[in-house]
């Protein structure tokens, strides 16, 4: 899998970038050997609770997003510790390259989530997927992170650990929730309102948005 360079430019805050930056990002993206890996599990959903796990989701985001869903998918995706090592090695050599690499990593882990979503859709023909959302989006608490990772056995399966301050390592790791419903789902996550970065996003401060 190769990082989507337009996305990389977006992570770098470079808009469309310029030709030389675009070419540099392409060259750096080619060097990356790591691919995103993911694991997911499907659970029953009763209201906002997952009885198999004894876990209850809370808040408006979860109730809006999962309205009418019978099942829920917990997903974790990571680019792995070897990418972290690559990023550390790059930082010791060339910070300029490192920030591009960092952007490539962000793009790749997102692409991994999209691949997982496509696989899930194939596994559940006739069911509709809600948008993917993550702890920290809207009012879905970040404190859900350890529980999601534990439910997925993510340390064994993917090598993801979460710190007491709720940061995940490897750096390029994502957890997400996707609802499954037998009726079509409208897109709900679009625009800044749902983004965890909405308070601090440089683009938003400048009156622009990233297009998602």
């Amino acid at each position: 899998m190769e990082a989507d360079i337009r996305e990389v430019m977006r992570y770098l805050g470079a808009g469309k970038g310029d030709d030389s930056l675009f070419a540099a990002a392409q060259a750096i993206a080619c060097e990356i050997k790591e691919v995103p890996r993911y694991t997911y599990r499907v659970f029953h959903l009763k209201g906002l609770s997952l009885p198999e796990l004894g876990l209850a989701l809370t808040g408006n985001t979860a109730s809006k997003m999962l309205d009418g869903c019978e099942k829920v998918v917990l997903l974790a995706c990571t680019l792995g510790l070897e990418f972290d090592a690559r990023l550390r090695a790059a930082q010791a050599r060339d910070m300029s390259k490192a920030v591009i690499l960092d952007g490539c990593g962000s793009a790749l882990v997102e692409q991994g989530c999209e691949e997982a979503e496509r696989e899930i859709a194939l596994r559940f023909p006739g069911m509709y997927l809600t948008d993917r959302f993550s702890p920290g989006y809207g009012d879905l608490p970040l404190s859900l992170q350890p529980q999601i990772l534990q439910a997925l056995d993510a340390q064994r399966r993917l090598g993801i650990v979460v710190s007491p301050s709720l940061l995940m390592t490897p750096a390029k790791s994502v957890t997400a929730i996707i609802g499954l419903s037998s009726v079509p789902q409208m897109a709900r996550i679009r625009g800044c309102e749902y983004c965890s970065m909405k308070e601090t996003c440089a683009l938003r401060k400048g009156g622009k948005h990233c297009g998602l």
Partner: protein
Amino acid sequence: MGFDLKQDIIILDGAMGTVLQQRGLKPGGIGELLNLTDPELLKSVYRDYIQAGSQIIYANTFGANALKLSGTGHGVEEVISAAIRTAREAGAGTETKVALDVGPLGQLLEPMGTLTFERAYDLFREMMEAGAKAGADLVVIETMTDLYEAKAALLAAKEATDLPVFVTMSFEASGRTFTGCTAASMARTLEGLGADAIGLNCSLGPDLLLPILKEICANTSLPVIAKPNAGLPDPVDGHYDMDPESFAAAVLPCLEAGVTIFGGCCGTSPDYIRTLKKALEGKAPVKRPHPVGAFVCSSVTACPISGVRVIGERINPTGKKRFQQALQEQDLDYILDVAVAQEDAGADILDVNVGYPGIDEVEMLPRVVKKLQSAVSLPLQLDSTNAEALEAALRVYNGKAAVNSVNGEQEVMDRILPIVKKYGAAVVGLTLDKSGIPQSAEGRVAIARHILDAALSHGIPKEDVWIDCLTLTVSAQQDQAKETLKAVRTVREELGLQTVLGVSNISFGLPARSLVTQNFLIQAMAAGLTMPILNPNQKEMMDAVAAYKVLSGEDDQCRNYIARFADASATVTSASSTASMTLDEAIMRGLKTDASKLAQLALESSDELTLVESILIPALDKVGIGYETGKVFLPQLLSAAQAAQGVFEVIRASIAKKGGEAVKKGALAIATVQGDIHDIGKNIVKTVLENYGYEVRDLGKDVPPEAVCSAVQEHDLRLVGLSALMTTTLPAMEETVRQLHALPVPPTIMVGGAVVTAEYAAKIGADYYSRDAREAVEIAKKVFC
């Protein structure tokens, strides 16, 4: 133990968690607390495994460490003693052995995470002591993905108990663990550290683990363990895809490969163990050849000495003013730069010497080792005569290192060789003793033989003894070059040992030194030198090695040689561009090599300060303005900063040569606050500030408020930069600001990071909000005006 570890096939148990879930336990919570709340449930599982044929059962202590138990109100010893007691009761009246089971701590060690090696060791040691006290028969360290963590646990087990220790790690189908550890690195390192059996558990089914098990078998003489999963889980319902019969059938090829200790991990149950036992009945262990061949490694780079391997010599202060200055200033980033350059130039192993008057090697050598292994993947050769420093460094080294060096003196060998043995390192023996360097090849070979015998008597295997026949300066002792070469040939051919030789000294005092050195290097390789110590940044030397490998046949189909010179043609074209470029252009375009060259030229007609003030800073400012107006993007801003860094290196070297004071525009500390473990943002700011000439004390990531305060006081700093990435760590930023304000002389504080806003900065009382690296420079300019 009731069975012979080296002779017999041994059956372990299967999964605990899988069986508990089958018996209705919900996932989640801390499973180790069951030792206190429901020992009967655990006992029933142990009994089923014993009845199924398990000769060793793992007590339910996998995560019973102080990190995971914190906040439960229960202690490590309490949980472990209950667990071992219950397992013992289940096995009463049988020959079953009970293992203290030790899994990963749940937090990552440095450099991936923030847990120090020493803290990990202490956490494991607490478990080992409790397990031994409770009467465990052996220790099993399992499911490790970080060789460093496995090492901390193994050292703790060896130092706190006399029990046998098994170590199994979890590998992916790629042949590496999540941290990139190779099977060969794992096997060689753990055997060297004294494990009693090693192998794999978890992650995959026996079929997919087979190739990795073969690789381990080829790299160890220890018994090998396979404790695989029941195949792969279905993501939808978590069900594993191998039934007991197909699991047992897939395990048999592992026996053929030489594995002798078997069990099951996730998805297995007593039925799997029963079926496995039946399948293995009447089978005999398969004998396998003992691995031979010298080897060193880091966790991620296995380096078998199966041909010529270059040892980089540049991490050494002798005769290097700039390096000495870096040591005195504790500038570990400079030392890392020296290491990185050698790795990129093609060195295979890096020699690390930090011995210099005024430097405490016992403190410095392990610090440098930790720094280097954070960003360099090569194995290290620790170069010191100080036994205490060597032990401190070998302890924190992640892999199998080499030690440079011992010599033929008995006291030296008595002091160093036990440490080499304990940490499973290779050792370089210099062919000299109390009476100096023998003038004849025969004399040197005799000392080599003596060193080999001493090493063998300490239990160090022959392949770990490397001999340095010593290079003497040919302009001073012209007859000695051929004696050295003769000694190399004899040591290689007659003693069958690996040979090490620092080649650079040969040409001291002569013109066109590199010609003589290169010629000597080639002759030495032809005589049997396998590990030249040299400067890999000297192209002539690396070219000679590349050509030698073609002629010796090591470079299969001349692939590497061709690749080396295919790359070379590309560099020629870009180098020719310097001619018409000015220094400020080179900086603005981010061309570090060109900028350095042009700076050197500029210093011929101008002094250092003028260069900084009239060319460097204005060029960086121009790029900075471009960045602010959206014409230049972050990677380009950083390229320019790094080109400036190249110029600063030239300036520093020039000043160090003259023995003058460095150009410094003010010192500040920068830190990612406590709890925050991702630090690329902070590193970006650091890069840019440094290249404006500020001295940046990088306190690192996850830095407690107290550490920031003490750094400020110790170095009398006037500016502190703090970064936070997550809303969860903002309180730590606030607390750090509060404590800094309470200092007798509070510094100016700037804060930044993804979640920090100007309003928040004002609210917590920071003096400045820094939106990005560029603003940090503007703030520094104001503070240090």
